Every structure is written in structure tokens, then in C-alpha cells.
């Protein structure tokens, strides 16, 4: 199969996944036995003590249906939903912050979340893999088990405990970092960028520590198994140096499952954002999602869920496209 055909196939799969995800997000609320328009009208009517005329109710219903995109049968609704979401990236206005558009809110918050979580996830992955590789490659030496110990120590700590402890230690007991961070708005200047980095360091440290442990343990286990492979033994008997064997033989082979893990954890970025951003009052998607879920802001939730679907599906696509570069055995299949 040619490269183009492969990419086209994967991309087609990607679109199909997105489509199915969007369809499910559309269908699920509509399977519920409640009609939001009826509910809303009922509320207003009970407040008006039933004084509304049938004409007024009909007019209100029509207005609400247009506003919520609920006019016509379910198929028409579905088509207009797809059109709005895919072509206009429009989820309607936020209920809580009416009339701010959901898409505007997401676009404002997205760089914050991506900046913090992408960077810290990638750093945790790189550090964890390096430490894990050394721990695994030299697993017969006692000193290497200290490295593994770091992983065993960090991995089981629940993130909220880790985050609060780090916050306590580094912002309260030793006030190196601000307890409640401030983030400048408006045009970016270099001092402002410095301030943002300084204020983001604390949440970034907790994220790196949390992701680090798992990566050490996972890489160590993979590296230990790989050092026993006949090709590593053969490389040793050829006289290849420790460095060559560790990087080109053990690492290159143990890397493959770790790349999958990285891509999946990048796809799950918005889940991680929630807790971090609440604890550190960080102005990203997580904070918006939390406000939306407590305030019943459906449109914002829709937007955030769609974004998550997009992220996971994109991560899957990226794995599919990167993997053949790393593993030649997949290329020819």
C-alpha cells in the first residue's frame, strides 16, 4: 500500500470517528424523555400563574425552538446541528455568560490549557522515559533501582493530594510561587510572557510529577524486557557500546508502546485540565467546564465535549501517522 493510500485511509477513519462522536453527542440528550422547550414553557407558565394565552405560548415555542435549533423533525435538526458544529464551529451562546458565544469562550481558554498541559505532558513523558530507560537498561545494577524507586514513590499518589501538597510546600511554607496566580490579559509583551511562565510553573510541576512516575515504571518494564532480546545480546557480542545498545537497540524498540501512551495521554488532556485548573485557578478549558457543569450551561458543555472528541480522535490519527515512521514492520503491511 502506498503512503498516500495509507494516509487517506487513516484520515477517512478519523473523519468517521468524529462523525460518530458528534452523532452520539447529538442523539444522547434527545433520547431523554424531556423536551427542554416544554420544560422551559412550563416554568414560565407556572411563574405567570397560567395567564399566558395559547398564541403567546405558540410564539414563545417557535422562538425557543429557533434559538435552541429544535425546529423541524429530528433529521432536519441533525443536519443543522452538523452544519453549525462542523462548518461554523458554533455551539450557540453560553447560558451563564449570555450573550458570549461558546466558541469565543473556548478559543480564549484553549491556548492556556494547551500551553500548560501539552508542555507538561511532553516534559513528563521525556523525563520519565529517559529515567525509565536508564533504570531498565542497567536493571542488574543496584544503583538503577533508586531510579525505579522514584517512579514507585510518585506513581500511586493521587493527583489531587500531590497537587495540594506541592501547592502547600512551594507556595505556602516556602513561598517561592504565588498562592493564587494572576494572569495578565491583553496584548502579549515579554515581561507578560515571563509572568505567565512564572505563574504556570507550579501547576506544571505537579503535572510533570504526576505523569513522570507512570512513565518511569512503564519504560523501565519495557526496557528490561527488551534488553533480553536476542538482537541486544548480539549487539553486545558485536562489541557495540553501551550507549549504542541503550539508545539504538533498547530505546528504539521500547519506544513504540510509549508513543501510543503519549498520544493517548495527549488526547485525554482536557480531563487532566479539570482538576489542575480548579486547584490552581488557571484560566483554561477545565475551569470553564466546571463552571458550566455547576451552572447547567449545556451549550458550553456541548462545546467542551466536542472538543474532547476532537482531541482524542486527533491523537489517534497522530499515532496512526507516526507509528509507521517508528516501526518499519507496519509500513509494509
Amino acid at each position: 500500500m502506498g503512503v498516500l493510500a495509507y494516509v487517506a485511509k487513516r484520515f477517512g477513519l478519523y473523519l468517521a470517528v468524529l462523525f460518530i462522536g458528534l452523532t452520539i453527542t447529538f442523539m444522547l440528550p434527545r433520547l431523554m424523555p424531556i423536551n427542554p422547550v416544554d420544560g422551559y414553557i412550563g416554568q414560565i407558565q407556572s411563574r405567570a400563574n397560567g395567564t399566558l394565552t395559547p398564541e403567546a405560548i405558540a410564539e414563545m415555542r417557535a422562538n425557543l425552538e429557533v434559538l435552541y435549533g429544535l425546529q423541524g423533525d429530528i433529521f432536519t435538526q441533525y443536519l443543522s446541528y452538523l452544519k453549525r458544529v462542523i462548518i461554523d464551529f458554533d455551539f450557540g451562546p453560553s447560558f451563564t455568560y449570555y450573550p458570549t458565544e461558546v466558541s469565543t469562550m473556548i478559543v480564549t481558554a484553549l491556548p492556556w490549557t494547551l500551553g500548560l498541559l501539552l508542555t507538561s505532558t511532553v516534559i513528563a513523558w521525556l523525563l520519565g522515559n529517559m529515567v525509565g530507560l536508564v533504570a531498565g537498561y542497567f536493571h542488574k545494577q543496584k544503583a538503577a533501582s533508586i531510579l525505579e524507586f522514584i517512579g514507585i514513590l510518585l506513581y500511586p499518589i493521587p493527583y489531587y493530594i500531590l497537587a495540594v501538597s506541592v501547592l502547600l510546600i512551594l507556595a505556602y511554607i516556602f513561598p517561592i510561587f504565588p498562592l493564587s496566580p494572576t494572569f495578565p490579559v491583553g496584548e502579549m509583551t515579554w515581561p507578560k510572557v515571563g509572568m505567565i511562565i512564572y505563574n504556570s510553573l507550579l501547576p506544571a510541576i505537579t503535572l510533570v510529577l504526576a505523569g513522570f512516575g507512570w512513565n518511569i515504571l512503564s519504560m523501565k518494564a519495557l526496557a528490561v524486557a527488551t534488553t533480553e532480546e536476542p538482537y541486544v545480546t548480539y549487539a553486545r557480542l558485536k562489541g557495540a557500546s553501551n550507549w549504542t545498545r541503550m539508545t539504538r537497540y533498547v530505546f528504539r524498540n521500547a519506544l513504540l508502546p510509549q508513543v501510543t501512551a503519549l498520544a493517548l495521554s495527549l488526547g485525554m488532556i482536557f480531563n487532566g485540565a479539570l482538576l489542575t485548573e480548579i486547584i490552581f485557578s488557571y484560566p483554561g478549558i477545565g475551569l470553564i467546564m466546571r463552571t458550566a457543569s455547576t451552572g447547567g450551561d449545556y451549550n458550553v458543555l456541548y462545546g467542551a465535549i466536542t472538543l474532547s472528541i476532537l482531541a482524542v480522535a486527533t491523537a489517534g490519527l497522530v499515532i496512526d501517522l507516526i507509528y509507521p515512521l517508528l516501526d518499519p514492520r507496519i509500513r509494509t503491511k
Partner: protein
Amino acid sequence: MIRLNDLKISYRLGTRTIDAVDGVTLTIPDNCVVGIAGESGSGKSTLMKAIYGDIQSPMYLSRGSIDYGLKGADGSPVTAENVRKEWFKTISYIPQSSMNSLNPVIRIREQFIDFPGTDSNKKRVLERARDYIGKLGLPAEAMDSYPHQLSGGMRQRMMIALATFFQPELIIADEPTTALDVVVQKDILMLLMELQEKMGNTILVVSHDMGVHYQVTHKMLIMYAGRVVEYGDTDSVFADPQHPYTKMLIDSLPTIGDDSMRGVMASQAGAGGDRAYRVEPNLIEVKPGHFVAQPARQKEEVLA
């Protein structure tokens, strides 16, 4: 000429030690193919590792020494201390598991030049290697492929190319044809023998296959329980085996159209369960160049 002087190689297992090879004294002449046979656990692989110089914990040399009698790439004599520097230059190795002895995610050409033996000029080495694999019946493109793109036979040819490329004085082949089908096996063995004749070096072939030994070796070394039971010219060993264990190994070779094998195999299986030979460390020369581990009068003695 390689001399093994009263070699004893042991493994440390906690507080216990196991002597895998015990009291082996041998002389392996130059320009000669030596076959090494013996059952699993007889110490073949341990002996090969020791000769290759790959002695690392928990394995250690508890007695004796190895005189290589070889000169390294820089002209200085090869000793047990510096033999690792000569790997794939004066002393090479062909592994058993050719199927997965090549790194699956790196092109073969990269694996031709990633060890110190090729440090001088990688580009030139690679050019010469391309020519060289052609002579060994491999297409030049094989250099640029990944291991999974080659067949089992091609991969083993590649291992032989790697092992012989620097014209080593000594090659250790650890069951080089076990994973291959019979037709490919024959090709690989023929190739190896052809190369040996050209280079005039010494090859040690470990194999369980007595047929392979009979076809390709000049000398046979039979090992049992960490000791050498018989060592001599292949023709002499096959024609007139002195030790009962050697006899049994040779008798196990099937002959086409020979129905009697069935009975032989069955009786051997019965005897094999609690078979144990006493093997003395001292070899006795029964004929010129043919050594046996115990005096002839003891050879029928089988300890139950």
C-alpha cells in the same frame, strides 16, 4: 592454534557454585572446522562463551587459561584480557537465533557499522560490505532493507556476512542452522565451508545435528557433563567411536530405509532415562589425534 589449559568455568548461584565446564584441556589447530556436540547442559555453550571471551557474572573462570595464539588487528597477541576489543575483527560469532538477532526497527546497513570494529571509515566499510554480500548471494538492496523484509535464509546469510566480513581468524557458530529448513540449512553450511576454505581460519560449530557435523567438520568434540569425552578427526570419530556416549550419538543418526531404527530408538529411550556415564578429565590418545576420556576397558561401564 588455540590452547585450552585445564579450563574450569563455573556459575555463581547465591552461595552455590555450579561447574559447567570442568578440566577441559584441548588444542584446536588452525585452518580447521571443529564440530561440538553434546546434550543440553553438557557445557558446550559455556565453553564457547569462554573462548569468545564473553565471561560475565554469574559466570566466571575458576581455573585454567586460554592461549589464543592469534594476533589482533593491531598486531599484538590476543589474550583473555583484550579479546573483547577483537570482537568481529579477529574473532566473530554467528548466533543461533538469526530470526531475531537483527534489530527490527533499524536498517541492516546501520547494523553493519554500529560497532567499534567499523570505526575507521564507515562509508568505505559500507561500500565494501555491499560488494561483499553480493558475493554471498544476497542482493545489494538487502543492505537497505529492514530485517523483516528478508527471509530466514537471507537473514542467516546476513549474519554470516557480518561475521566473516572482517576476515576473522576464529568464528564461533552457535547452532547456526537450527531455525532453518533443511534445504536452506544445506546452503548456509556450504556457504560457511566455502568461506572457511577461502579464509583458512578456524570455525567452531556447535550443533545437535550429527548429520551436520559429519558433513562439514574436520574435527569432532563430544562433550558430556562439563567434560570432553571424545575429541578427534571427524572420520575417525564416526568410523570408530570409543566412548559409549559418542556411540549412542552416532547411532541416533537415521538411515533411509533402515527399519531397525525404531527398535534402537526405543531401547535408547529406555536406557536414556537413567543414563549416566563416568567421565574422567584426563584424555587418552587411542589413535594419533583421537582422544577419549576414559580407558578402553572402562568404556562399557555405565553407571545406573
